[in-house]
């Protein structure tokens, strides 16, 4: 009776530095970072991501970041849109509220990772989730940490938490 529809899940990866990180990171940080990654999960024809304003959604590739630098196929999920929405809303009210955004510890990639696991059981590539720790392991990162902590990324989209 239940159709087991299968919905593809993709991870959109954006380099927010537009290649600058790749070039400048050895200089600034002392280690090579290929990009400053922002990720979003695309499922059911929408792109979902977590930013300063909370959990947002938009048409795939619809953020000001444009088209993703790379797309990772996370597999597929049976979770329907409806259930996914309930899930997202619960998240939005608990762990991913508007005020919980932290550039290092609780950012878009954290969200993408969690959602990816929920949907497919898989996590996102580790180079993405390891990014904050990589940065923080450099003296430069440490020095800039107070500043970076206060940065909140808001690339636009529709806020599902309804808070603005």
């Amino acid at each position, binding site marked *: 009776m*239940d159709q087991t529809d299968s919905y593809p899940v993709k991870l959109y990866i954006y380099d927010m530095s537009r290649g600058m990180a790749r070039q400048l990171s050895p200089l600034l940080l002392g280690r090579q970072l290929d990009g400053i990654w922002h990720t979003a999960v695309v499922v059911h024809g929408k792109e979902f991501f977590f930013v300063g304003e909370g959990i947002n959604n938009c048409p795939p590739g619809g953020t000001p970041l444009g088209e993703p630098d790379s797309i990772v196929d996370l597999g597929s999920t049976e*979770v329907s849109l409806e259930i996914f929405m*309930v899930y997202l809303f619960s998240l939005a009210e608990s762990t991913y509220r508007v005020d919980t955004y932290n550039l290092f510890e609780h950012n878009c990639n954290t969200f993408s990772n969690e959602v990816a696991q929920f949907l497919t*059981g898989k996590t996102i590539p580790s180079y993405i989730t390891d990014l904050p720790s990589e940065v923080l392991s450099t003296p430069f990162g440490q020095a800039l940490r107070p500043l970076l902590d206060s940065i909140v990324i808001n690339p636009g989209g*529709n806020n*599902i938490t309804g808070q603005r």
Partner: protein
Amino acid sequence: MADQGAADPGNNNNNTPEASEGTIIKVTVKTPKDKEEIAIAEDASVTQFKEEISRRFKAKQDQLVLIFAGKILKDGDSLSQHGIKDGLTVHLVIKTAHKAGDGGSTSASSSTSTQAGNTSTSSPSTNPSSTAGSTGTAAPPTQTPNILTGFGDLAGLAGMGMGSANFMELQQQMQRQLMSNPEMLSQIMENPLVQNMMSNPDLMRQMIMANPQMQQLMERNPEISHMLNNPELMRQTMELARNPAMMQEMMRNQDRALSNLESIPGGYNALRRMYTDIQEPMFSAAREQFGSNPFSALGGNSESGAQPSRTENREPLPNPWGPPNSSNPSESGGATTGSTSTTGGTNPSVSNPLGINPASLGNGMFNSPGMQSLLQQISENPQLMQNMLSAPYMRSMMQSLSQNPELASQVLMNNPLFAGNPQLQEQFRSQLPIFLQQMQNPEALSVMTNPRAMQALMQIQQGLQTLQTEAPGLMPSLMTGGVPGGIPGGMPGGMPGGMPGGMPGGMPGGMPGGMPGGMPGGMPGGIPGIPTGGGMPTENPASSPSSAGTNAAQQQLMQQMLQMFAGGGGGGSATTQTPEVRFQSQLDQLSAMGFINREANLQALIATGGDINAAIERLLGSQPS
């Protein structure tokens, strides 16, 4: 029972006895908010697992949705089947009660979500009540309403999905009601939402098909199904069917038009012949009440009718101004055929479109559904709008209107939107001369026909509204000299707001439709569209954020628009500083450059808000056709 080999932490295992030998495993069950460790037998079924979970999470089993590795765990499965082992995490989503057992509509809504947005846009418009209803039913759990409201399109979809049965029922009910209560029908027809929906031929077709009476008709007359498959014709038929009165007017106009056309040389004969072909069946169609015949007549003439009926539909526009009617068909015919005979043939009669008695204007033409359907039609066909605007007849009509504010105000006052609001009338009356002047400004017109520009204006307007609510203190500080230049911004901004029957959020498509007949109709709508509370929307601070990134010209436009409204709110003078004064230096520069046409310079400067370079471009490039 409790003597399985695996470690038993003593969590409530009491209910796993049903599992036979299997070891107890600890599975973490994670909800977005919560996380619990549940001990369950390794070979337990999902049902048993859910029992345990429902106890732990205090939810009904029906509400539980378990997800593991991207798969939804169904009751009939077993844990081991999904590979759920000790220490692994299973995700749990607790559905709200109303969604329980909603698997069918869930997939329906998700599949519809992947389709084009057609359904989603139409469903909210057709059934705002049903979505509201379904949102209402889902209200008890706090999350659900958010779900529906938070996701734009999805809201309509979810409503549709959840109330999928309701939608059809509602539709049927509506139709039943409509059939029984003709007044309601006309009311509904006037609802801009409905009109929006009606512009979607697919939806219309579905709705019509769903109507048992229609089905009977279709049986009797196969041409009707023909007709239903031709979107153009569908739309026209909808309008005509709605307004037998309109049809009759059209007939009459056509007669007058034809008689006038006789005097015009050239290819109009052909046009006339075409008209005649349609005329008769249309007449008989109009005469009959709503029987099968009109449809057959229309259907039969679909081919020949499509094009000319499109043109002839423009005729209602000039109605309020009487005799110009006759010139219109030729005018519009000229526009469609692109022939140059427009200017040649129609000028004599067009030169004085307002030769009519102003009194005749007060016939509530604007109230007529014909007007509205025309406007709707226009909104569907921006090209139509362009043609009309570019018509010299239009120019002269506007000129006459501007010269005769009395007339214009009469026309406007008859607009039903105004009827209940004398304040608006006052406001509007004072704005009138400026507005009319602006109507003549080709720049203003081109802005109005540019959907993106209109959209931008709409956004600005909305931004202002928001700002007004957020920072009302800002507004009083924003009164500076107003300028008519602001009016094109204000009017188009007002019109899209006003056109769809006063809905500030009106679609850009409705905007061009607002222009001709709706121009007066749109404005009053537009004024309430802009917050009338105080009538002083925030200006600079407002325009800076909202126009952040827009050029200075737009900003100025904004200011002017606001001032105009502010001035209107004061019910007094709209302009304190003429454009000439404001643009004095620019005018001088322009004339020094060799642009000696002061009037044109001024208009260009007004349109560009004082930007000389842009004004020069306009002057060089503008060729009002």
